[in-house]
């Protein structure tokens, strides 16, 4: 109930331009459509790099809005109020991760077919891109939230967020690109399974790390 209220509030805030949803989506669309300009638009070449590019771009786009995940609430005093509520820090963290997924990852998922089209991927590749983004984004939100909670009281936290989070997300990028590749080639390579497993583990475990990070930044 409390969690739903919090997620609902964040969605409402995002719909009124309070979050960085628009920024993330616009960034993703721009960068994904600009990449082919830097590469010879030969179908084979684009197909080979599509998976990796799409995964990296969606992770970077999600990071843009992750900076603000706790920062906004921290700065205006809302975080103290949320903490004095009935939720444990772990549930609070899980709710914020879910809210980030709804406000950033879902819009990214919605425009991911655009990326597939820009990369000149046929039907199967398009399915692969959407599937990869759908399975990868929960892990991006969860692991990214760890970084956001750790850089909460840092002055230029947003700048080092990618440095902290991206290496931890290497498996997501590798497996996500693998999903696209397997759909393109029509060959099963286990990437869907590995990516799902990583996302599941990240979503289950990271609330504890996020809670520890929040505890540090609130009470130390």
């Amino acid at each position: 109930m409390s969690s739903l209220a919090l997620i609902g509030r964040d969605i409402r805030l995002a719909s009124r331009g309070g979050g960085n949803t628009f920024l993330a989506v616009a960034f993703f669309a721009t960068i994904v459509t600009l990449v082919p300009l830097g590469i010879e638009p030969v179908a084979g070449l684009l197909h080979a790099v599509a998976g990796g590019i799409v995964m990296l771009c969606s992770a970077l786009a999600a990071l843009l809005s992750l900076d603000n995940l706790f920062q906004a609430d921290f700065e205006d005093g809302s975080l103290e109020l949320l903490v004095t509520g009935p939720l444990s820090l772990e549930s609070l963290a899980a709710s914020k991760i879910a809210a980030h997924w709804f406000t950033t990852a879902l819009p990214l998922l919605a425009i991911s077919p655009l990326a597939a089209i820009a990369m000149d991927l046929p039907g199967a590749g398009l399915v692969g891109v959407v599937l990869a983004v759908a399975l990868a984004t929960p892990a991006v939100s969860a692991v990214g939230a760890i970084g956001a909670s750790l850089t909460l009281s840092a002055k230029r936290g947003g700048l080092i967020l990618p440095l902290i989070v991206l290496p931890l997300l290497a498996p997501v990028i590798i497996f996500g690109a693998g999903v696209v590749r397997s759909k393109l080639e029509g060959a099963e390579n286990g990437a869907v399974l590995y990516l799902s497993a990583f996302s599941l583990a990240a979503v289950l475990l990271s609330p504890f790390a996020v809670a520890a990070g929040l505890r540090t930044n609130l009470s130390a």
Partner: protein
Amino acid sequence: MLQRDINFSVSSGEILSIHGPNGAGKTSLLRAIAGLLEVPDGCIAFRLHPHDIIANPEERIGMVGWLGHQDGIKGELSLRENLQFHCRYNRCFGSVQDALASLGLADLQDLPAQYLSHGQRRRLAFARLLVNARSLWLLDEPLSGIDSRGKACVRQHIQRHCEMGGIAVVAVHEPLGLKSASLELQ
């Protein structure tokens, strides 16, 4: 930072006002009571019944009505939405309408909170306490920026809260204007 050798207890129905110059640690003391700040060598406990004592900060934290230095208001949401969120989040069913009306904000309830003046924001933040129904209020400068009529209104609410068996611990830099025990920080 917190200063050493602070000792006090407050019981049901009492108001404690905390005085002291800037930097004396009024806010830190409130945060420590709430469980937001660790107290490495000290003990803060809530006694609910003679045998039910809560000293763990993570348990204490869910029991206080907090009005911090910052208002915790989302400018994109209307006044009513701001209160409604905290109402749902805290699983309370106090009347949002009544709370807004009793602080003179009823006419503004559908406006985005970002249009509010400093004093109005402070009043909205205070209204949150009325819907949340916690018995221990921790108030950090509840009167700052509020005009004299609003101040009287806030005082009245604190008074009534304590008459109904609540507790209020209030950090102020000017006299609170209510009958209260007082703690002086250096």
